[in-house]
Structures are given as C-alpha cells and as structure tokens.
C-alpha cells in the first residue's frame, strides 16, 4: 500500500522542479504526455536540508536534457512523490572495526538514505526513482566472484540514537548484533538488507524502519537475521509510507556470515 506523501494536481502546461543534491529535475504535464528533464549542476549548490524542495509553476530551462516522456491516452493530473528504501543493499562502514565479545548483544543505529519514487496518476509503477544524495556503488563479498553490488553509505554505526547526525531524507534503523560464538565477532562493514525493510513516518517528522537483529550462531559460519514488526521508538502517530521492495517468507532467515558481515 502506498501513501501519497506529496501529491500535486498539475494543470496541463504546468511544470514543477525538484532539487536534489546534484541536479534539478523538471516534470511538466503536457496535453497528451508528461515530460521529465534534468539539469546537472557543476557543483552541488543545494544542501541536503534544502533538497527535495518542490517549486511549482516553473519554466523548463533551455539547457534541460529531456530524459523521458510518459505518453498516456488518459488525462492524468496527479503527481505523487513517495520515499522508499534503496533498490540495492546498503553497506555501512564503521569508522573503526567493531569487536563484539561472546554473549554480548549491543544496539547500533544507522541512518539509511531514502530513495524517492515519482508516480503519475494511479499507476502502480513509478516513473522514476532517485536518491537525493548520490551514493557510490561498492562490492560486498568474500571475493570478486561471490558477492553483490551494494550502495556504500557514509554514516557509520553509532551506539546511541543521539549520536546520529540530523540528516534529512534518511530513515533510522536499529540493529542489534548478538554474538553467540565463543570468538569475538569483528565488524569491518555491515551489509544491510534495505530491500526487505519498510519505511514508516513517525509523528509526521522522522522516518524509521523496522529493527533488525543479527545473531552470529555458535560455531557455524551462519547468521540469523530477524526483521522486527514495527518501529522501535516511542510514537504517537505512525504511518506506513512504503512497503519493503522484497518480502522474505519468514521473519527470521539464515544467511552466510560473509554475506552480511565483512
């Protein structure tokens, strides 16, 4: 189920602009189609706090690169913008490697960059998806043969929610790591399965996602991942903004250690 976080009714001919960190997107409704264009900026002029500002009644600049045209026979006037989780897993890298002794289960917090999807009318598939801030790609795996492509995120793992920098366009994830193995568990980097996480808006302000518990099983090279049911913070109003992109059959699944912890 999708919630229209921001929805506009656009009369024919009107265009809106959406600022991201490094480019400006222009969306114009024309009589039989929607046109999507973008203008790259040489230097990011838009701070993250100001990003995703939507301006109405703008004129399409001449230097805008027309990127896509959405042709439809029906008259659709609504444009919706919905935040969701990234389309690949996210790799968080703590500033220094973290060692977790046997039997301990500390909490960590990490802020996950959100993607935004643009929908036209009641279509179930988005017109485009984009990040407000560009994320570098990285490879997560034991070697260059086995592994997966992920986005690397700058925010590290912190142990208190107050230590998280106030960053807009991010959802907070609580991760609990339980080490049942007699050996210390060393975390150089952590592969966070963003595609299995939903996005909630808490009290109309912050974005949160369900907590994740990672358990390092005893004397095996396997981990169990447990997805929580709801957000772990206190709230008065909770709104599900977007469902997970992928669903796992069970709330607890087993994965290879090397697929999650690097």
């Amino acid at each position, binding site marked *: 189920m999708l919630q229209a976080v921001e929805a506009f009714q656009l009369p024919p001919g009107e265009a809106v602009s959406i600022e991201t960190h490094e480019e400006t997107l222009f969306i114009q409704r024309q009589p039989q189609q929607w046109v999507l264009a973008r203008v790259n900026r040489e230097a990011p002029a838009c701070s993250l706090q100001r990003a995703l500002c939507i301006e109405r009644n703008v004129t399409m600049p001449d230097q805008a690169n027309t990127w896509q045209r959405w042709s439809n026979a029906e008259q659709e006037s609504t444009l919706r913008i919905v935040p969701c989780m990234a389309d690949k897993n996210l790799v968080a890298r703590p500033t220094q490697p973290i060692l977790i002794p046997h039997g301990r289960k500390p909490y960590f917090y990490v802020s996950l960059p959100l993607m935004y999807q643009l929908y036209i009318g009641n279509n179930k598939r988005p017109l485009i998806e984009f990040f407000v801030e560009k994320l570098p790609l990285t*490879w*997560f795996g034991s070697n260059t043969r086995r*592994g*997966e492509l992920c986005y690397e995120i700058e925010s590290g793992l912190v142990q208190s929610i107050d230590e998280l920098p106030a960053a807009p366009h991010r959802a907070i994830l609580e991760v609990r790591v339980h080490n049942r193995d007699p050996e210390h568990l060393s975390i150089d980097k952590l592969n966070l399965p963003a595609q299995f996480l939903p996005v909630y808006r808490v009290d109309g302000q912050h974005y949160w996602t369900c907590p994740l518990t990672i358990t390092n099983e005893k004397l095996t090279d396997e981990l169990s991942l447990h997805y929580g049911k709801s957000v772990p913070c206190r709230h008065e109003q909770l709104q599900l903004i977007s469902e997970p992109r992928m669903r796992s059959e069970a709330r607890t699944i087993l994965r290879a250690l090397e697929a999650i912890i690097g």
Partner: protein
Amino acid sequence: MDILQQVLQPLQGADGGAWLRALGYLLLGIVLRNILIHGMRKYVDTHTSPHKAILFRRAMSYSIVFIFVLIALSELGFHSGVLLAVAGVLSVAIGFASQASTSNFISGLFLLGEKSFKVGDVIAVNATRGEVVSIDWLAIKIRTFDNLYVRVPNDDLIKGHVINFAKFQIRRIDLNFWVDLGTDCVQLEDILTRLIQPHTDFLRDPEPDLFRLGIGVLGLQVQWSVWTQTEGFFDARSKLIDLMLPAMQNAGVVITQTPSVVQGQDSSYRMPYP
C-alpha cells in the same frame, strides 16, 4: 535397389483414405507440437537458461514430428520395425561419415554441462569476440561487435580458450602507461583516487590501485586499476580516461610515449578489448 523397392512397396497399395489419414496425422503432429511448445514456453523460459530452453524446444519439436511421421508412414502400410532398422543402419553409416559432427555434438553436451557461458554473454574464442546469440548441438553462433555472424563449432570451444567477459558482475579497468621517472607515485595515486570518488560508475570496494610495474627506458611503468560494473564497462573506461588525462596534465605528471614496440615484445601483452 531391392531394399528400396521393398521399402517403397507399401506405397503402391495405399488407397486415398490411407493417404488422407497419413496427412491428418502429420497435421495433428504439427498442431500438437505448436501447442506443446507454446504451452511450455513460459515454464521453460523461467526455469532454465536461454540456451537450454532453445535446445529443449528443438529436441521436443523434432521428437514429436518424428513420432507423427512414423505413425503417418504406418498408415500408408510401412512397418515401423523396418523403418527403424533402416534408420539404424543409416545412422551408423552417417555416423562414420560425419565424425566431425559427432565430435561437435559430444562437445556440445560437455559445454551444456559446464555452463561456461549462456546466450547473451560476450565471449572471445580464438580471434572472435562478440555476443552469443545461439548455442546449438553442433556449433554456437556469435554476433561480433561489427555485426558479423560467426559460427564456431563446439569442438573448437572444447579444445581452445574461451574468455567470458560477462560471467561476473564486476570487472577491472586496467590502464597501462609510462610516466616520467621523477613522478611521485604516492601523490599520483592520491590524485587519481580523489578524482574518481565523486563518480558512481567506479566502485569503492575493491579499492582502486596504482601498480608500479617496472622501470624501463621510457620511465616508470604503472597500471591504474579501477573496478566497475560489467554492465557499462566500456562507458566507464572511456569516462575514466576522459577524467584522468586533464587531471594528470594539471598535476604536472608527464606521460611518456606509448611504448607499443616495447610492449609488443612481451608475451603477456594483452590486446585491448574489444
């Protein structure tokens, strides 16, 4: 001639009804083949690799047509036992006469089991590089980058080297060049690393590396290696070169002449791909 007459003799006794029934069986076979192949296409396409799907469809098509041809011939008075015996004798004769085809066929079976490549992969076999468009029992078909259609016998694939450029998700871009002996390699590596950081085409991990390969008459030979996605490899390589040249010029790094003669003497020299 006696054998041929013996085989064709039933045709003389076949009446109009037998011919109609035979034709009906043939049509039924073709219709049934089409229905089965179309019905199973969705399942086969989603549960097997593209080349196995092609082979499966062909095997099924030939089997159904063969069975219905046998039934039609039986209606005309042929004895299937005689036909099969003739087919057996013929197949042995053809087998001896076409050893190359048999070898290719068996090589094709090995290739199928190995799963070294699939339809759509970009491979290099001997001097041919291109996209695999079809994998068949006797040969594979490749479309080269200049749009030529090349048939490569399966036997060649088993005996020779095959490079699959699309097997893994990521690839390394290697740029070899020579710089002046006075170049500060640590500083150069730092410049090049910072240069690619804002660009999402290049992967953060595995980390880029500047290898110092050796010292020669032309100066210091280095290799700048950056990882990227296999999909979009060529665009990333062009972008890397476009970024590097002005940055190195601005930093005062002197690239010495391209040592094509010197590198050509080295057996490890690799042709640029494609």
